[in-house]
């Protein structure tokens, strides 16, 4: 199991304006959602985890290795990140080659890379499209190519930057099941998200960022119970949570099934 320790992390592009201030977090095996308003420092934070940026003060340790002392390329085998826009990375003429690029870079053999790439493409539902040109695919399919190209690297940590953008219901479900699958295989999943219903459905832990600090951190149910605190960060609890709160329930419900089975369990029938 991958291990990430963040200690007193501070970062700023300019010295006078810190983007992140004194963040200490340790990641366990739970799938973790990072939520917060734009500009709260979420993307900067994951770039620091990935070693793309180096801390101004404090440390990030990936499996005990300080990111200050590692190059991005050398960290790439341990920690993968799916960027928001698939067009920022696609450059090969064939889907399979695109997905094999990362695995080959981190030292897998041709055969191994191909095996991982095919497995990753199956996972994202792109079986049979291996020989297509990525640019002939739709944007949501290209997103899946981008996800597969990170999954194929088989890293212990996988970071997603707003994976559900412009996805329809089916796309969201596929991404949700990928996240669950990674979790089951013992990978650490961290995702930046704006879709609270999606967070409620798929993530065990939620961290709320506001103005460069961690405002809330805990189990997802526990975090979404703190409505006032969320509103202070310009966030709203998931729709189901809002409805149940308005009905006067003390328990926090995260999904429709969650609530329906509770009501039915209490002997309700129509």
């Amino acid at each position, binding site marked *: 199991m991958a291990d990430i320790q963040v200690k007193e992390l501070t970062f700023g592009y300019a010295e006078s304006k810190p983007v992140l201030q004194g963040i200490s977090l340790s990641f366990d095996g739970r799938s973790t959602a990072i939520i917060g*308003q*734009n*500009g709260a420092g979420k993307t900067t934070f994951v770039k620091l985890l990935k070693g793309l940026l180096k801390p101004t003060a404090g440390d990030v340790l990936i499996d005990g290795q300080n990111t200050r002392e590692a190059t991005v390329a050398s960290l790439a085998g341990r920690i993968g990140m799916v960027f928001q826009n698939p067009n920022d990375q696609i450059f090969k003429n064939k889907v399979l080659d695109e997905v094999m690029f990362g695995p080959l870079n981190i030292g897998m053999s041709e055969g191994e890379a191909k095996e991982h790439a095919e497995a990753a493409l199956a996972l994202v539902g792109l079986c049979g499209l291996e020989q297509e040109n990525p640019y002939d695919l*739709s*944007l*949501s399919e290209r997103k899946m190519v981008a996800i597969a190209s990170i999954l194929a690297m088989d890293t212990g940590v996988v970071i997603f930057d707003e994976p559900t*953008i*412009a*996805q*329809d*219901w*089916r*796309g969201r479900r596929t991404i949700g099941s990928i996240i669950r699958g990674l979790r089951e295989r013992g990978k650490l999943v961290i995702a930046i998200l*704006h879709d*609270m*219903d999606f967070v409620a459905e798929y993530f065990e832990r939620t961290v709320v960022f506001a103005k460069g600090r961690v405002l809330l951190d805990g189990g997802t149910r526990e975090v979404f119970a703190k409505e006032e605190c969320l509103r202070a960060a*310009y*966030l*709203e609890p*998931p*729709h*189901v949570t*809002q*409805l149940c709160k*308005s*009905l*006067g329930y003390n328990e926090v419900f995260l*999904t*429709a*099934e969650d*609530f*329906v089975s509770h*009501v*039915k369990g*209490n*002997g*309700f029938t*129509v």
Partner: protein
Amino acid sequence: MAHIAVQHLKYRYPLTDELALRDISFTVGEGEFIGIIGQNGAGKSTLCQALCGIIPSFYKGAYGGKVLIDGEEAAKTPVAELCRKVGIVFQNPFSQVTGSKLTVYEEIAFGLENLGLPREEMVRRIDHALELLDIQALREQNPFDLSGGQMQRMAIAGIIAMEPQVIILDEPTSQLDPQGSEEVFRAVQKLCLQGITILMVEHKMEKIAAYSDRVMLMDKGEIVDFDTPQKIFSLDCLEACGVQPPAFTQICRGLGLRNGDTGLYPVTLEEAHKALDQIKGGAAHG
């Protein structure tokens, strides 16, 4: 006469075999708020582009049928003229910034300069648009320095200032954070209250249910149904069309809570609250 009338619209993109729109017909009245839903590839964006003439003027391909906006035929009117009647806002706020203007105020003027409006008229319209979208405080800022939500509201202001009677929004909030989306939804609702006809493509079903007068469900280039949100979100074929109903409707479906008179499921928080409050009371007594 209907404000927007689409008659047997068919369209196929160049170099493709399948129709992106197959025989679409519908009408929309003045001041209606229409939600357009469906899975990716259903034809929603294609329809939006046909309504404002980008199809067939920008994208060629095979076109059949008619789109009438306030009696004017979209395919036969130059886009630069049609834009006085129908405006469109796209998903990506960034690519809608002209890039040639240094302030929000001048950015909004871009379309008005193209229309050749006198200066006083421009100033009046820009001030009005800034106020409607609640971005007066940003008027001297550089367009590229804005947040996504602010940039998208600026894009809407740029369209509003041209005073079209119809505004089409193609997933305007998909790239925004929750606060940014809420800002955009509130602004759009305000426009609708001013009598502007709104057609909005959106994946956030709770918002569609809350704001729309009628909802158009599309799949495979066709309109599956076009009716009230309650009717559409109670359809059995919804999942087959790749659409998940609002969370509130999911709960009421799970519990079989239909409206006694209409037989339809609640779609908004308020409606669901009302329906669930009754059973909660009932359960407590029983």
